[in-house]
Structure formats: structure tokens, C-alpha cells
């Protein structure tokens, strides 16, 4: 077998230091990392197990917002009463992600670090070219099987889709990633592929996600996550939308609107153009549908994924109208 070292970190600082060493990777729920190790993508020399660290799995909700420890399980967060009532889109995104078995193992920090399902990325022995794995080696996906690839945020170097659900909701509500000392908006935490698709997150060696903070927002309280896919469960999104809305006192005029897309982009995709087009307006179906088309402005397809460009605005519009109806 391929040897690697296994360390059990005694403290957050110890974990950070160990993870800073070359070839070291943090191990939490393992649902992504072990899978990637099996298909030869992840080749850690050292696994730093953080699952036994105390105090990192809490879920605290107050008037100011929610703080979710990095080791909180997806399933626990999804089922947390205050998350459900104050951040329904977050709970719904988690409930529709993966399978019950995976949600019971996978952690929130690990969820943010999950990697693309691009089949070329995941198959190094048969497709050596992948700029995400080996910078400069090329992209096998372009010209290949692309039904599940991104139409937004792509580059000549990479069209791999960001597969997650939770982060889509987090991006909509300006969540903050806590990296110990440093804090960074989740939208900035995920990087566009550009010329360096190997660099996916704004996290440096020696840093570790310790918590996610979601500020309290009226739009988050009235929010939803709508995920469309061929199969009812255990499938990545064909297109998804996290939407939150806050009305003026008249109950019709949009004071705040949050829109983010999943299943269509190289990172969790905030659709500010849609938000800006509708903020200050009265919620009205035709206007919503027209504005939703802005969600895919600049989209580029690679053949089989063209349908996502058609689908995504419809998902956004439905989610906005659904939130409007609950007035």
C-alpha cells in the first residue's frame, strides 16, 4: 500500500502546524478526502485527524447570526431548529445534498473544501491532463463529456463545476469563513479558476477553517434553496438557487434580495445582477422572470451543458416567486 503518516491533532494550533507541512492534509469526515485518495487525486503524505478536537462542532444561533463549528455534521446543522427557522435556505441546501449516510459523516468545514465531480479531474490514471491537478497539463474535459460542467466562471484552463449546495446558500447571505485569526467572506473564499484552477480556495498553508458565521438577515429568514435534478435524491444539481427576500413594510416592494446559483458555475455563484434589478421594485412575475435571465449573463456552454443556461434562470425565478408568495 501507499504509506502515509497519521497524526491526531491535540489542539487547533497543533493541527494548523501539522497541516502546514508539505503533503499534509486535514482529515475530518473523510467523505471527500478518502474518496479522492482512492481515485488517486489526493496523495497525502500526512493525514492530520481533527475529528477529536473539542469545541469545534457547536451550532450557536443568536440575534446576531449563526456560528457553526467546522466539525458540525451536515446532518446536525440541517436539522437544527434555529437554523431551520432563521436560515431555511441553509437547512434546505444541506437536506438536499448527498445522502443521509454522507450527511451524518461529513462536516461543515469539509463541505466547503469538497472538490469538483469533473470525471476527468477524478481519473488521473486515464486522463493525465488536468490543470486543476497538474497545472499546465491541459484540460481533458473541454471537448469531452460535459453535461455536468460549468457554464459560468469558466476559463480556457478549466470548466469544472463547483458541486456543493451549502456554500451556495452561504454566498447568498454573506457568510464569513473563520480561519482562526483571519476571517474572509465566503464569496472570496472560493476562487475562480482563471489560469490557476489548482488554487480553489483562499486558504493558506497553516490555516484551518474553524467556523462559519452567517449574519442575521431578514432575507435569510425568508429564504429557500431550490435544487433541480434528474433524480429525486443523491444527485448533484442540474441547477439550483438559494434565494432570500425582505420586503418593505408594504409587503410588496423588495427591500433586500439575495440570489445565488449552484450546479452551473465554477464556484458558488452570487447573482448580484438579478438582485440589483429587482431591489426597490414591486415583486411581479414578469419582472422576476426577466430579471432572472441576468443570472446567466456571460454564460458559455460546452455542448451538452447548454441546457443549464436555459434552466438556471427558471430556477431562480421560481425560487423568488415562491418566496414572494409566502408574504
Amino acid at each position, binding site marked *: 500500500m501507499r504509506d502515509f503518516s497519521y497524526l491526531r491533532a491535540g489542539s487547533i494550533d497543533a493541527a494548523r502546524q501539522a497541516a502546514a507541512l508539505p503533503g499534509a492534509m486535514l482529515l475530518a469526515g473523510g467523505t471527500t478526502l478518502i474518496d479522492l485518495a482512492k481515485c488517486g487525486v489526493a496523495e497525502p503524505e500526512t493525514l492530520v485527524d481533527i475529528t477529536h478536537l473539542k469545541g469545534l462542532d457547536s451550532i450557536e444561533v443568536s440575534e446576531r447570526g449563526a456560528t457553526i463549528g467546522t466539525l458540525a455534521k451536515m446532518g446536525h446543522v440541517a436539522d437544527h431548529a434555529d437554523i431551520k427557522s432563521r436560515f431555511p435556505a441553509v437547512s434546505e441546501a444541506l437536506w438536499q445534498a448527498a445522502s443521509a449516510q454522507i450527511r451524518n459523516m461529513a462536516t461543515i468545514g469539509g463541505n466547503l473544501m469538497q472538490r469538483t465531480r469533473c470525471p476527468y479531474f477524478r481519473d488521473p490514471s486515464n486522463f493525465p491532463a488536468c490543470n486543476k491537478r497538474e497545472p499546465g497539463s491541459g484540460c481533458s474535459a473541454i471537448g469531452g463529456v460535459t453535461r455536468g460542467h460549468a457554464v459560468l466562471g469558466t476559463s480556457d484552463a478549466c470548466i469544472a463545476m463547483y458541486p456543493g449546495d451549502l456554500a451556495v446558500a452561504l454566498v447568498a447571505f454573506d457568510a464569513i469563513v473563520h480561519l482562526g485569526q483571519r476571517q474572509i467572506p465566503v464569496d472570496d473564499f472560493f476562487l475562480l479558476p482563471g489560469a490557476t484552477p489548482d488554487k480553489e480556495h483562499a486558504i493558506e498553508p497553516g490555516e484551518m477553517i474553524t467556523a462559519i458565521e452567517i449574519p442575521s438577515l431578514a432575507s435569510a429568514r425568508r429564504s429557500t434553496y431550490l435544487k433541480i435534478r434528474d433524480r429525486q*435524491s443523491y444527485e448533484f444539481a442540474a441547477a439550483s438557487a438559494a434565494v432570500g427576500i425582505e420586503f418593505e413594510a408594504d409587503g410588496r416592494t423588495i427591500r433586500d434580495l439575495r440570489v445565488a446559483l449552484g450546479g452551473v458555475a465554477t464556484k458558488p455563484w452570487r447573482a448580484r445582477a438579478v438582485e440589483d434589478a429587482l431591489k426597490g421594485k414591486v415583486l411581479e412575475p414578469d419582472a422576476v422572470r426577466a430579471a432572472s435571465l441576468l443570472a446567466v449573463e456571460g454564460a458559455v456552454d460546452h455542448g451538452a451543458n447548454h441546457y443549464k443556461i436555459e434552466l438556471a434562470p427558471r430556477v431562480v425565478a421560481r425560487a423568488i416567486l415562491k418566496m414572494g408568495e409566502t408574504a
Partner: protein
Amino acid sequence: MTLELSLNQQPAHARQGSSIGQPLTRRDGFLKVTGAARYAADNHPPGMLYAVLAVSSIARGRVAALDVEAAKAHHGVVEVMTPKNRPALAADPDAKDHPFMFRLDLLQNDQVRYPNQSIAVVIAETLEAATEGAALLSPRYESLPARVGLDGAESFVPRGVGIGSPAVHHKGDVEVGLKSAKTRIEATYETPAQYHNAMEPHAIVVAWDGDRLSIDTPSQGLAMAQGRIAGLFGIAPENIHIRSPFLGGGFGSKGMISGPQVLGILAARLVGRPVKLVLRREQMYGPVGHRAPTRQTLRMGMDGEGRLTAIDHHARTASSTFDDFFEPAADASHTLYASPAIATSHDAVRLDTGTPLFMRAPGEATGSIALESAIDEAAHACGMDPLEFRLRNYAEVEPMTGKPFSSKALRECYRQAAETFGWASRPLQPRLMRDADGFLTGWGMGTATFPAIMFQAEAHAVLRADGSGLMETGAQDMGQGAWTAFAQIAADGLGLDIDRVEFRAGSSDLPNAGIAGGSGHTATAGMAIHNAGAAVIARLADLATGNEASPLFGAGNEGVLARGGRLYRRDDESRGESYAEILTRAGLTEIEGHGKGAPDPASQETYAKHAHGAVFAEVKVDPDFGQIRVTRLVGAFAAGRVINPRLVRSQYYGGMIWGISFALHEEAITDRRSGRIQNANLAEYHVPVNADVPSVEALLVHEDDPYVNALGIKGVGEIGITGTAGAVANAVWHATGVRPRRFPIRIEDLLG
């Protein structure tokens, strides 16, 4: 064997009288839910090593180099088997002595003919070391462009399709029929390549002892596997002992022993120690058979009353470059709908894939989805309800041959399923039904059919002086419930309560029970069991009726009944005695009998024999997203005598769910440049999850068939997938007005 003991230690079912027809739960269920059931890969003989396949990255070409030294240098690696050191075989793996023999990739040379073909085997002390050793081989290839897709090579008309069916059939003149028609339709449907994904991947544990072989491996055909291995290794079949008590699903992929399984045997011979080899999920996408893609064009003509005047069904399919298996899709039009003119034809291309093989209802499933879609289109073109149209074209005799059916309760299937489903209130036009949530709602139907096939089987029965019985046959339980259904037949055949019968199966040292395939296992091995029981009871009756001390003396063999461990006089049931009394008086510890199961050639010549069914589906489609959900399925099936209604219903459920899978989910997606399948895993090769099958109902329609066999059994293993896939597709049309012509139906097909 411990297996039979533990099976017979299960709590007895408190019940008297006939076992056949009782809804017994699986006798092996307790073992399975407690994890005690031993599957092939659960075996670990002392000294066992682990073998891992190295498989080809490319689709076509040759292996130019393998770094065997690097693999062998890895800690724990014992040996690397390549074409250079692979032990000699007594037969050429590329030889094909008969159509039912398929060519195997056994490292006979450095050629690569499909992706995931075995190119080496690494044998090590641990699974991890063998896995890493395989990775260290770092193969270099000389590759040629892959031939991919139904237009990827020059087409030709194969000599035969399926197993020996001519590629072209016709009766009457379809061109005349089409010309005379008042209404015509023509449509082309595409079905994708589908790959076997049984929960249990192919696995083998092998131990050699000189020229004797001990094997644990899942097999749908123990004697065939034994014969194939014997031929390849030049040893006597009786020197090969294969145990296959349980299969974690077969579906045709374990009908014949696959190349990787034989490589496990070779690996064990090479290293002189027991070896285990288990395929990884992605390694199943190549060497173990698959369902080939098809492109089917149907032309139909109808007269002014909606009667078919012609059916023309053409199918393009694909085989590998090195062997012949052609999905007989167009043959689906031979048996269902009456028409004065029917033509079916096939052509094919050769692609750089593993050889396609049997996959649950091979030909029937692919053909059915196209035929049932076309029938739906034809009904609509005639302005008729699809059920009414099917009844108008109901076949009273088998359309292609004119033979009468041995039995056919299809009308009753239509009636019961339609009534249960509520079909009568269906609007004729599409896109007229919406539910309270705004989903487009559609209702569709399909006719199910599958031939009632029998093979050859033998069984051995014993009655013991303690009044218990033993029934032995090398039958295979693929998860369908053979352990239970066969024990029920054995109990009735022996005239014993089921808890007094020891039933042995799943081992090659038992009488040959033929293949668990073609939906014919229950009929075939069941008849062997039934006849073995009759034979031993006849001997018992001879002992009793010929002995003056017996109350049955002089009754004659025909004059006695066997029931509950006793023989009775037929004309006076107060006179009888127990099996134990008869054997004890005769001074015998046990008596035995043998039985065979086989098709009756005379009735085969006279009758068309098929099971039938009707499936009704409701789908809901989101009008904006094209997201399809099957909200309801109701099927009614008539398949002769039902041995165990609980197990039969489960078979129908499984088939119907696979029908949903066919219509909406399953597809192997190939990278056209490399020829590799890009979704060779269960996250992305989709089958329905529980949430996709919220309501499935299967009705068992009574049917007596005096001709198929003495037990009246047809077979239920494959019929459920037929009819269902078309019903779902037709429901999607009824919901949306969009006619699916490509399967599986995806979101993008309905976005509009």
C-alpha cells in the same frame, strides 16, 4: 455444508398442507439481515493472497510496456501476472466452440480491445499492496482511435441476434400493408448502453490442490461455469467444486464465468496459494457484459378502424470487435400485436467495447420501450385510447408464427391494472392534466411480455426413515428467492411439510440445475425437483402397496396420495400410514429418486408460450424545469402458476423499478475521444433511489397453463422491465405533449 444446516434451522413456518402458493418469507432472509450469509468474497482460506486487476486505459491498441519490476518491488507484492508468465491454458480463450461460448480476455497477448480490459494481475499479501502494485505498473500503450457510437463503424447484418435468432424475419408484405393503411407512423428511438451494477461485484476465491479446484464465486450457471473452467484448464469438471450459495444480484452478468474470474484461477495457479480477486465498481464497465445501445425505427400502418396493417421494426445495435452478441431488440415485435404484415430486421456495428451480453430481458427490454412508444404514437394518430388500440390489435395467436398461445390472460391483466389505476378517466389529448401544485400530469401504459423458456435440470430426492426428506439440486439463488421457492416445490413434491425438508442448492457437486437465466430457472429446476419428488414417492408407494402388512396393500401406485409425510388411499383417506412406518417396515434407512426438468418438444412445436402483463404509469413533470417524477406504477401480470406470491411480487417490483431506470435514469456516457465511460460509478451512473419510486403496485393475475410444464410455471424474472419503460415514456408524452425518442429522458429533453 453449514449453509443448509443453518437454513434448515430457521424457525419453521407454522402451516399445514400445500407449500406451493404460500407467501413464505425468504428462508435465507435471517442469514442475510444478520450478515451471516456468506457471499463469495467473504471466504478467506488459509494462506490466501489478494489479486487486483490492472486494466487498460485505452480502448484499442497494445500494451507497449509495463513496469513489472516497480510493482514487484513494492512491499507485499508477491507476483505480477502478465502475458509473459501467465500459466498455460489447455484451450484458446478466443476459441468459440458454440454460440453460447464467449471469448475471454485472459492475458493471451498484449492487444487491447476495449477500455478496462485486463492487462495484468498483481498478487499480494494485502489488498492494499496489490492495489498499489497495479498502479505502479504504469502501462505505456500504442493506441489507435476508438470506434464509438452507433455510427462509429461500418454497419453489417449479423448472421444471428440474441442466441441464434435470424437477424431478419418477416411475414406478409409490410410495404403493401403500409400502402393500404389509412394512417401511418414512423419514429426512431435511441436507447443507451447500460452496464451491470449488481450490488455484489464479480468476485472469486480460488484454491488449487494439485489438479483439483475449489472455488467460491457467484454464478447463475454452476455447471456451465464448471464446464468452461474445465475446458480452459484441461481438467475434469468433477475436479472443480464451485460454491455459489448466494449472489448479490446476477441479472445476466453472472450467467457465464467472466474473464476476471478466470484470471483469479490463473493467479492462484501461478503463485501456488489461494487467491481472492474482486472487481472494483469501475472495473465492471467492460469485461462482464452490458446492454448494447440501440437505434430502432418503427413504421406502422393502421386501417380506418385502428387495426394494424403493418409493423416494420428495424434495430441498429453494436457488438465488440472480437465477439458476437447482438441485442435482439426488433424481435419484440414478433409476439404482441396482431398484424397481417410484420417485418423485423437488425444491423450492427463493431465498437471498441467489451462484448455486450445478457442484461435483464436482453432484446425484450430495449425492443419493448420502442415498440410500446410506437404503439402509443399509432393509437394517438388514430385518435384512439392507447388501451382500446391495444385491445383492437390483441393477438389471439402469436402474430409471427400463427401458433396458439399455451395460455394468455393479457386481457385480464389490462382490465385489472386499468381498473386499479383508474385509467378510464384519462383524457385522450396530452398536456391536459395538472395537479394542485401545477405539475403536468400524464398517464401512460405499456404491454409486458416475456417468453416462457425452459432449459435442462436435474434433481435428487431422498426420503429418510425418520420421515424427513432431502432435495438436492445445483440451483442458484440470485436474490430472487430460489432457496424458498424451490423448497416449497420440494415440500409438495415429497408430500412433506416444508420444515421436514432439507433443501440443498448453490453448489456444483449437486445435480446440474441448469442456468438461472431467461426467467426459466423456477420452471426448469422446479420441474426437476417436482419429478424427483414424484420418483421417490413412487418408490415409497411401491413398498407400501406391495406389502400385505400395509393398510395400502393392493391400492396400486395410482391409488395413493402423499401428503404431510403420509401416504393415503385415494379412495379412502382414513387408510394410510407414515413414510417412517413404510421405510422402517421395509428395513430401509432411506430411499432416493431422480428427476429431470426440460421443455416438452411436442408442446414447444404446437404452442407459443409467453408471460404477459400490463403496466400503467403516472408521471408528474415540472412545466418549467422538465423534471420528471414517476408518482405511480400499477402492473398486472399473468405468468402461469405462482409458487410464492410474496417473492413473485418482489420480482415484479424489481423489474418495474428497472423499467423506470431504463426510461429516466440509466446511461453509460462515453468520452468519444478515448472510448472510456465517464460515469462508471454509482454516484453518476444513475439508478432510481427510493425517493424515485414512491408507489409501485403489482397485481398477480390468475392463469392456468396446462402446456408449459406440469407445474404450470412460466417465469417472472424479466417481464417487469418490459412494458414499464414504455409506459413511463408514454406518460411523459401524455403529460407534456413531447414524444420521447431518446432514452433516458432528461431534463433538457423537456425544457422546450
